[in-house]
């Protein structure tokens, strides 16, 4: 049994005193930890009021038939009471296997998976490639680095508008394609090209973060490992495979997880690129927003149900991912 000394109080932990009554234990726990609880109290309150309560309320809403016509609202001086009813799991049943469920949910679901996988894979591979190039001793390294970070430095809502100008029907990209006698797709109208454009813009926005994080990871790998590998006659590929990749493992696992979560929830890019004009290119997040705020009447209940479904998908994914990461690690990485 290890004895851990509590860092703040200097008290020993881990040596269990003989079991006492529940009330005494509660009292002791309180005396021992009250300041810790006092310090996390502000964040617990904020999270409780702003995250947990809305979440519970959202779960409740998803079990009703609330929309903007039967919710409580004030028109002029008249206050109208809410008249929506509890309808159980009907919303979920309707979303998952009701009429036209494929068009409303499953097509967006498949597209969201494709979108997340494609974007994260592109972010990671391009980011790693650029990080490897920048990790060498080359002339103008700082300049390259500064330029390559630019898409991250400029706020997304600004750059997306730049892309909109470029992707417009006779914008610069199509003019360039025309000049090269290549077909010029309708980037902002045709579903396939909308999706293609969305992945392209998101890749452009997301690579710098990966690149900078992985570059930090590369620089923290001990150079003597490379020397040892070279002495043992490892080829460049073997050094990459057996020194670089394992050395990047902890950074990679974090940034890939963050990347998946952020891309899955990526709202701004698709919303700003297409607005309400492209329901087929909506991933689940923007589609849920569209249901709740982008149409009349606003369907609050379905939107909330989509939200809960999305959250469940992410929680399941993260749990599986953690288990997979920690499969042979005594010390959990995340």
């Amino acid at each position, binding site marked *: 049994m290890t004895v851990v000394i509590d860092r703040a109080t200097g008290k020993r932990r881990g040596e269990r005193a003989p079991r006492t009554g529940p009330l005494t234990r509660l009292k002791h726990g309180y005396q021992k930890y009250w300041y810790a609880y006092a310090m996390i109290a502000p964040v617990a309150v904020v999270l409780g009021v702003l995250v947990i309560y809305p979440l519970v309320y959202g779960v409740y809403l998803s079990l009703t038939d609330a929309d903007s016509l039967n919710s409580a609202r004030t028109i002029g001086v008249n206050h109208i009471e809410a008249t929506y009813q509890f309808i159980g799991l009907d919303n979920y049943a309707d979303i998952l296997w009701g009429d036209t469920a494929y068009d409303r949910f499953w097509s967006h679901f498949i597209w969201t998976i494709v979108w997340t996988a494609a974007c994260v894979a592109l972010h990671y591979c391009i980011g790693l490639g650029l990080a490897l190039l920048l990790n060498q001793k080359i002339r103008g390294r700082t300049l390259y680095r500064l330029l390559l970070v630019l898409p991250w430095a400029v706020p997304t*809502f600004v750059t997306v508008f730049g892309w909109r100008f470029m992707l417009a029907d006779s914008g610069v990209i199509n003019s360039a394609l025309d000049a090269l006698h290549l077909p010029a797709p309708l980037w902002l109208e045709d579903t396939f090209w909308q999706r293609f454009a969305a992945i392209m813009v998101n890749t452009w926005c997301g690579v710098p973060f990966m690149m900078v994080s992985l570059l930090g990871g590369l620089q923290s790998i001990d150079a003597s490992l490379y020397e040892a590998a070279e002495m043992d006659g490892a080829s460049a590929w073997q050094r990459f495979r057996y020194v670089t990749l394992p050395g990047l493992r902890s950074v990679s696992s*974090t940034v890939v997880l963050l990347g998946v979560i952020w891309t899955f929830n990526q709202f*701004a890019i698709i919303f700003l690129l297409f607005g309400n004009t492209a329901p087929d290119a909506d991933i689940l997040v923007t589609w849920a927003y569209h249901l709740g705020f982008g149409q009349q009447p606003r369907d609050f209940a379905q939107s909330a149900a989509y939200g809960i479904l999305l959250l469940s998908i992410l929680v399941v994914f993260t749990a599986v991912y953690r288990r997979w990461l920690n499969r042979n690690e005594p010390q959990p990485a995340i």
Partner: protein
Amino acid sequence: MSTTTQLTSSAAADQTPSTAAPRKVRRRGEKSPGASLATHGVLVVASLIALFPVAWLVFLSLGPDKDDYLHPGGILGKMTFDNYVFVLRETDFFDWLKSTLVVSLGTTVIGVMVAATTGYAVSRMRFPGYKKFMWVLLVTQMFPIAVLIVPMYQILSELQLIDSYLGLVLVYCSTAVPYCAWLLKGYFDTIPFEIDEAGRVDGLTPFGTFARLILPLAKPGLAVAAFYSFITAFGEVAFASTFMLSDTKYTFAVGLQSFVSEHDAQRQYMAATAVLIAVPVSVFFYLVQKNLVTGLTAGGTKG
């Protein structure tokens, strides 16, 4: 040929074989001209791709007509700063600036204060429920806005906080605080806890230790957290477009969209506004960007 066997961590110096080989030996870290050329080629292309959309936006903002983006060649002959003058004089630019600053700075101040106490608590004290609490913080990071936006809309409208700065600040805190708490935990972990012990021995309370010893030492970490909160609030689109209704209270993210209505798209003004917004933020970003990444990966990996 002298043999230098300096063992530096940079691994730049490596021993050349002392049995002077007749063929030319490339030293470690040195590349053939071809490989070097390829590296530069790839980096130049990547940099151009990174730079082009932003440069294009700046270029278009100089064209006086709203359809100039279709005839970029024409802009060269008639470049003008009129768009900027118009945006600064005739639009709600300064109102948007004010709301953006109020909301972003409010989020920064409240967010960092709350996150610092939390980060310290989870860094130093192994209280029961500590692991679960970290897990909850991580889970809130992955809330899609779709989960929260409808309930928050209803709650805020019941509290009369729709279209108010305070409402938006509180909403942003809920996204910024969990991440900042993780980040600050990582930073507090790097401060040796002997300092805490010294403080305790000298008779400070846990709160006193935190406020008088740890916070001053953690200034760089706090700066990163502040910057992250600021950027989060500054660039957020969904909540701002839904909760802010009157056009003088728009943040930049919403205001920029208002240039493109269904009937008319004033693209030249939009481009000019975009540039005006982007320049100061980007400059600021470059100054602190390195710390942001260090804090981020440290917070994530030292769980």
